[in-house]
């Protein structure tokens, strides 16, 4: 199987969907002539032209809203946020238009639109450019939220997202665009809402997504050396998320650690933990632990940032804690 970077897998997904359906177009800052701030859209302008690869001025609320209006009128926009940090100025367009217009119109309109871009901390970008937006975008109905961590998932899920008839928030990662992995030739789709067991194990369930996946797998390897077999579940979809896969694993391991890039208060981490605590109440042998960001604004200084984010070592410590809890 060919090996691709996540960046390339995303590009192939967009390219294939644009080739397949001429209602699909890409819009955002620097997506065209500049070939993308992170080169995800490289080459697409040359191939599809300015009508379908649309460079915008710096006006996120404006072009997010244009995407919403275009989707209502029959197009299938892929809106790129250079990073999700800049989507904060478009929050109203997503919350009050994208997520609500189908319902408000009594089902008269369909909103097939994807909002995609890098999410969460990259490296030394300080506080305004280092934020995880799950807790904001998962918190209301009317959208689906996806977060990808491998080239295979990136391509399969983005293609599905583009074909989905709903607004999709699609999280990528600046620091993982170059991450390589196998991607089969030819078309495949990955359904939204299905988690993926990235590593099977019987002792501890590690639930993760996005940038959390790679470090969770590292932690699982370290844990294995200590005799603890972790089952690493990549949620991939955060709204809706795969309750069945999670419960099945928890009923088997009776121990859970959540590891992800994001602030601790609320969000997907608390939602999943609370769900498990209720639905698997009698199956838990230890409290559910969460390894995520420290509850602080990020600093530019490398050492301060590294201390604030989850690491394999931190995850391992919690894996051990839940595993040895009752011993």
């Amino acid at each position, binding site marked *: 199987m060919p090996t691709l970077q996540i960046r390339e897998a995303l590009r192939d997904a967009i390219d294939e969907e644009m080739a397949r359906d001429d209602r699909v177009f890409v819009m955002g800052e620097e997506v065209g002539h500049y070939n993308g701030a992170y080169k995800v859209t490289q080459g697409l302008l040359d191939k599809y032209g300015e009508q379908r690869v649309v460079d*915008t001025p710096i006006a996120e609320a404006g072009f*997010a*809203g244009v995407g919403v*209006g275009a989707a209502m*009128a029959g197009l299938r926009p892929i809106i790129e946020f250079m990073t999700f940090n800049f989507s904060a100025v478009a929050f109203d367009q997503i919350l009050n238009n994208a997520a609500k217009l189908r319902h408000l*119109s*009594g089902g*008269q*309109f369909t909103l097939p639109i994807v909002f995609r871009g890098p999410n969460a901390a990259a490296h030394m970008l300080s506080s305004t450019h280092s934020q995880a937006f799950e807790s904001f975008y998962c918190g209301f109905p009317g959208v689906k939220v996806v977060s990808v961590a491998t080239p295979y998932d990136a391509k399969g899920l983005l293609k599905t997202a583009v074909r989905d*008839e709903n607004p999709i928030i699609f999280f990528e990662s600046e620091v993982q665009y170059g991450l390589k992995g196998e991607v089969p030739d030819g078309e495949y789709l990955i359904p939204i809402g299905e988690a993926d067991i990235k590593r099977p194990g019987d002792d501890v369930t590690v639930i993760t997504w996005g940038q959390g996946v790679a470090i969770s797998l590292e932690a699982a390897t370290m844990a294995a050396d200590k005799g603890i077999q972790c089952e690493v579940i990549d949620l991939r979809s955060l709204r809706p998320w795969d309750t069945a896969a999670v419960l099945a694993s928890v009923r088997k391991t009776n121990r859970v650690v959540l590891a992800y890039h994001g602030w601790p208060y609320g969000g997907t981490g608390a939602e999943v933990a609370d769900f498990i605590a209720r639905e698997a109440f009698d199956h838990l042998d230890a409290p559910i632990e969460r390894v995520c960001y420290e509850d602080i604004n990020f600093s530019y200084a490398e050492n301060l940032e590294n201390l604030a984010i989850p690491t394999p070592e931190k995850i391992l410590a919690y894996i051990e804690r839940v595993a040895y809890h009752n011993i």
Partner: protein
Amino acid sequence: MGCYFPDRVTPTNPPTQAPDKDEVLRVYKEMLRIRRFEEQASRAYTQGKISGFLHLYIGQEAIAVSTADLMKDGDRVVTTYRDHGFALALGCEPDRCMAELFGKKDGLVGGVGGSMHFFDKDKGLWGGYAIVGGHIPVAAGHAFASKYLKDDAVTLCFLGEGAMHIGATHEGMHLAGLWKLPVVFVIENNQYAMGTPLSRQTLVDDLTVRAPAYRMTSDRWEVNDIFETRRRLAEAVERARKDHQPSLIELLTYRFRGHSMSDPAKYRTRDEVDVWKEKDPLHRAELSLRNDHGMSDDDIESVDDTIVEEMEAAVAFADASPQPEPEHRFRHHLFEDQ
């Protein structure tokens, strides 16, 4: 003070020909239907049959009616929460509109939206929006799709003068101008944003001063004569359709009621209201029917009676319509929620 600047109004070019009686009577009826509908709604609100926010269009009817006359198949109207007038002008049944206000099953959108969110895609009503300015980029998006799909459709986007100062409006208009989208932005300057007169919203007296920044063509007039309004709007619509040249139009108008039913409108004087009553296009159309077309009190009254009956029937229909089924609340959040 809600201010009006005759000096700044662009003069009109004279009508090619004066409208005949049938035409005057037709638009008079259309405007009157809206006013009577709103009056019924107002009454129903005080009776507690309508809740939430209710923003009446009384005084601005000529804008919706002249717009409807200009629309071709596929053209769209995108407007604010002050949306009943457009629905009626575009041919939505008063029954279903009233039922929507009552939050009933037979409402225009099944009772989920209420007064602020009338939608009837097939009739060209692409929606009433309730976040000020939030619909401007969306309307630009409809126009973007028209250009993309080459469907020759024009999007007419209406906003209050109060919406000119918020970011989304600036961004949406800027993109529409930059990309030369087939859209007409019409500011319904009714002099107030809730209790705030234009003079406390901005220091400029002419809101079309921004058109050059967006490379839009602009026009600006006071809405007294519905035919002048239609004629001048038509020019903008054709610019959009033929040349993909967007326009920014400011219409000087007035709402005779408060911002919404909960607003006593204490912030304006009787005199100011009276001045505008004189300009009221509905009133002027009536005068023309009487003076130019020899209609009598009885003629006018019988026209009115028929329309009042129609709107009372709408109230009866809304009263009789059942509440939405409980399960209805789970529909339409996602495409899958059928």
